C-alpha cells in the first residue's frame, strides 16, 4: 500500500489533511445514522415494527393461554383431596397420632382434622334452608357424622403413596373408609389433561416461535433489501463494512425496543378490555391475567426484548452482509 508516493495535487480550494483518526466520533455517528435512517424511512420503519409487534403479540397471547390453562389445571388439582373418616370407637389420641404421621409425610401438603361436632355444625349451617334435611337429622337424633381428616397432597401423583399408608393394617384399625376411590377418576383425568396441555403448549410455542422468527427475519431482509443500493454506494465511496453495518444493527435494536413497547401497551390494553369477561371465567380459579403479567413483567418482557433484539441483529447482519460484497 503505497499510494502516497507521488505529490498531492495543488487544488484551488483549501482542503485540510484527510488523515484522520478512524475511531473519532464513530459511535455517535453510528447512532446518528441509525436514528436518521429510522425517521427518514418512517413508513418502512413502521412496517417493520408492525411485523415485530404482531409477532410479539402472538407469542404473548400464547403465553397468556399457557398461563390460563396451567392455572386452571393447578386449581382443579388443588381442589382434589382425600377425606379419611374415622371409626366411632377411634380414640382422639390415635386420630391425633395419625394426623401427625400424615403431616410428617413429604408428599402431604396439609392434613386438616374436622371433628364430627364441627362437621355437623357446618352441615346444619349449609342446609338450614332445607327443611327435609333438617327434619331427617332430627329423626336420626344422634350425630350421624364421623371425625374426618382431609388430606391434600403436594402433587396428584402423590395420592398413590398416601393411599398406601391408609391401606396399612395399622391405619385400617381406626379408619372406617376414605373417599379417595371416588376422586381417582377425576385425578386421572386432571393428570391426563394437564399432560396434554403441557405437550400442546410446547408444540404451539415451538411452532409460533418458528413462525415469528421467519416473519421477523423476512421483514428485516425486506427492509435491508430496500437499502441495497445505498449499501453499495457506501462501499464505493470508501466506507468500511463495519461502518456500514453498525447503523443497521443499532436500527435493529431501535425496532426491537419500539416494537416491545407497542406490543406491551397493546397487550395490557387487551387485558384491561377483556378483563371483565376473563375475570368472570377465571375468578373461580383465583387467577388474573393482568396480575400474572405484572408479577412476571421483568422476566417475560426482558427475555422477549433480548430475543427480538438478537433475532433482529442477526437478521440485519446477514442481510447487510449480502450487499457488502461490492
Amino acid at each position, binding site marked *: *500500500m*503505497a*499510494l*502516497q*508516493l*507521488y*505529490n*498531492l*495535487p*495543488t*487544488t*484551488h*480550494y*483549501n*482542503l*485540510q489533511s*484527510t488523515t*484522520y*483518526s*478512524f*475511531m*473519532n*466520533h*464513530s459511535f455517535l*455517528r453510528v447512532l446518528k445514522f441509525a436514528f*436518521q*435512517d429510522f425517521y*427518514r*424511512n418512517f413508513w418502512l420503519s413502521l412496517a417493520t415494527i408492525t411485523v415485530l409487534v404482531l409477532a410479539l403479540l402472538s407469542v404473548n397471547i400464547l403465553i397468556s393461554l399457557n398461563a390460563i390453562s396451567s392455572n386452571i389445571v393447578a386449581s382443579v388439582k388443588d381442589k382434589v383431596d382425600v377425606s379419611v373418616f374415622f371409626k366411632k370407637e377411634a380414640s382422639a389420641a390415635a386420630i391425633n397420632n395419625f394426623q401427625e404421621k400424615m403431616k410428617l409425610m413429604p408428599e402431604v401438603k396439609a392434613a386438616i382434622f374436622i371433628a364430627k361436632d364441627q362437621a355437623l355444625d357446618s352441615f346444619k349451617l349449609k342446609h338450614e334452608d332445607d327443611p327435609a334435611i333438617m327434619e331427617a337429622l332430627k329423626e336420626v337424633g344422634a350425630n350421624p357424622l364421623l371425625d374426618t381428616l382431609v388430606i391434600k397432597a403436594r402433587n396428584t401423583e402423590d395420592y398413590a403413596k398416601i393411599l398406601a399408608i391408609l391401606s396399612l393394617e395399622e391405619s385400617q384399625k381406626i379408619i372406617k373408609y376414605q373417599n379417595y376411590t371416588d376422586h381417582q377418576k377425576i385425578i386421572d383425568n386432571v393428570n391426563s389433561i394437564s399432560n396434554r396441555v403441557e405437550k400442546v403448549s410446547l408444540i404451539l410455542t415451538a411452532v409460533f416461535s418458528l413462525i415469528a422468527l421467519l416473519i421477523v427475519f423476512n421483514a428485516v431482509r425486506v427492509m435491508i433489501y430496500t437499502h441495497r443500493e*445505498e449499501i*453499495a*454506494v*457506501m*462501499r*464505493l*465511496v*470508501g*466506507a*468500511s463494512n463495519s*461502518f456500514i453495518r453498525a447503523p443497521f444493527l443499532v436500527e435493529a435494536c431501535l425496532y426491537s425496543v419500539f416494537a416491545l413497547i407497542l406490543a406491551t401497551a397493546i397487550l395490557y390494553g387487551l387485558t384491561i378490555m377483556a378483563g371483565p369477561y376473563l375475570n368472570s371465567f377465571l375468578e373461580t380459579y383465583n387467577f388474573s391475567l393482568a396480575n400474572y403479567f405484572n408479577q412476571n413483567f421483568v422476566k417475560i418482557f426482558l427475555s422477549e426484548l433480548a430475543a427480538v433484539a438478537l433475532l433482529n441483529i442477526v437478521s440485519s447482519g446477514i442481510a447487510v452482509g449480502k450487499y457488502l460484497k*461490492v
Partner: protein
Amino acid sequence: MIHFRHVTKFYQPDTYALKGVSLHIQPGEFISIIGQSGSGKTTLIKLLIAEEKLTSGGLVIGGWDISKIHHREVPILRRQIGVIFQDYKLLPQKTVFENIAFALEACGASNNKIGKIVPQILKVVNLLDKRDKYPRQLSGGEQQRVGIARALIHRPKILVADEPTGNLDIANTREIVELLRKLNELGTTVLLVTHEKDVVNMLKKRVVVLDRGQIVSDQPVGRYVL
C-alpha cells in the same frame, strides 16, 4: 501512476471483458477511454476501484499492487481514488451536504473538519446554496456536481469518471467537462470513460480505444474514431 500489465478479466462461462490489456498512465495525465458497448471500458474502472478482481495480469496504482488487494484494504483504496458515476450514485435519504460529508465520516474525520471542508468543496462545484436539498430535488447536472464534489473530498490523486455526462444535456456536459479539465490542470490524473464524440474531441487529450477487451488504438492527442 497507473499501470495495467497484461490484464485479463474473464467472466464465466466464456466472456473475456479484457484480454491482455497493458496501459500506463502518467501522473497528471488526462486520458479518455472510448469504445462501443461491451468493449470493456466499465470493467477497466471496476478493476481500478477493486469492484472486480482481475483474472490474470497485474495492476499497480501509485506503487500499490492492487491485483491481490485484501478485502479490508478496499475502502482505503477507494478513499484515494475519486470516482464519478453516470448514474451519480448519491444516497437518496441524505442531503447534498450529508452525501459529501459521508465520504469523510466513513474515514473518521471530525465534525469540525467536515464542517470546514464540505462547504469549501460545495463552493467549488457551485452548490453551496443547495446544501440542504435532497438528490431528488436537484437537476441531473447538479446531482453530477454533487458526485464530483464527493469524489474530490479526499483530494484524490486520481479521478475516474465513468460516463459522467451520459445523462446530461449539452450545457451541463460542457460544464462537467470543464470542471474535469480544470481539476486535471491542477494536477489530478483524470481517467474519463465515455462514448460521447463531442466530449473527446473537445478535450484534445490522450485517447485510448478499446474493442472487444483489447486496446486497438492509443493516441497522445487523439480524436473520437471508432
